[in-house]
């Protein structure tokens, strides 16, 4: 089963990389891209009996390691 974890900086935290990418896009003429937030994407191949179990496992490892709760939040998608 595949669990996808998307980790992003919390909205309240300044993202210097996203800002730089946005500035580069503006330089390229994409002025309609107002803002960019950069994050991390993890694809976990998990052994789990159910979608719920896979989601719980992904959340556990995200809490423990993949995301730093001080600055980041995450979202999980599970593909059965």
């Amino acid at each position, binding site marked *: 089963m595949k669990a996808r974890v998307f980790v992003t*900086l919390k909205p*309240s*935290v*300044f993202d*210097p*990389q996203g800002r*730089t990418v946005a500035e580069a896009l503006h330089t390229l003429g994409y002025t309609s891209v107002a803002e960019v937030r950069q994050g991390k994407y993890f694809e976990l191949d998990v052994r789990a009996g159910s979608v719920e179990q896979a989601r719980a496992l992904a959340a556990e490892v995200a809490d423990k*390691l*993949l995301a*730093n709760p*001080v*600055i980041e939040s995450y979202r999980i998608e599970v593909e059965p």
Partner: protein
Amino acid sequence: MTPGRPVRFAVVVFPGSNCDHDAYHAVKHVLGEAVDFVWHKESGLHGADVVILPGGFSHGDYLRTGAIARFSPVMAAVEAFARDGGPVIGICNGFQVLLEAGLLPGAMLRNRELKFRCEHVHLRVERPDTPFTSRCTEGQILRMPIAHGEGNYYAPPEVLTALETRRQVVFRYCDPGGGVSDASNPNGSVHNIAGICNAARNVVGLMPHPERACEASLGSDDGLVILESVVESLGRSGRLAAAVRRAEQTR
């Protein structure tokens, strides 16, 4: 416990640490105290009185700086040592490891300008009441190098307020005259924070490198006072406590 016995430092070595030898050299050859390297897979600290988590790029800075190192076996011993009141200092990557381990509050972001900053900066000592600043005076200005890409200290507003109220901000980036402004902030850290301590004040983390500023021939010896401070602090009260702690560990 023999009076005059050298203070024993432990320098923890993670895969990717690269200031471990600088710290070892400063302690042994400049300060004249005893020092051991402790590999991150070890479960003890060789009976150390002081623990240094050195700078570098532990585990290649993969995932987040310090995020993987915090799970190294040695960190359980470091956490127990810190809980018992043992003096712990995290320098640069070592500071990042302490943040990830939750031994200090907050987190590191990429530097505001995304540049790796490698230069000498000035720091203002805000708090002389830690074991690593006891020989400093409040407001003393120290010049030492920084070398980091992720030293942009961040803490949520309520944590930041608590840090300031409890006087846990130990060092701030400043100009040569001691003025704290955005211009003297090399990385975007909130409140120009360069170093903090925990509530118990025995765990200190800072981004600048005191161990690389211990000899005038290296451009500054302002960092030596940090190491001298902890030796003096232990001389006053801590070495007896450390000896008791060691005796308990070996029982």
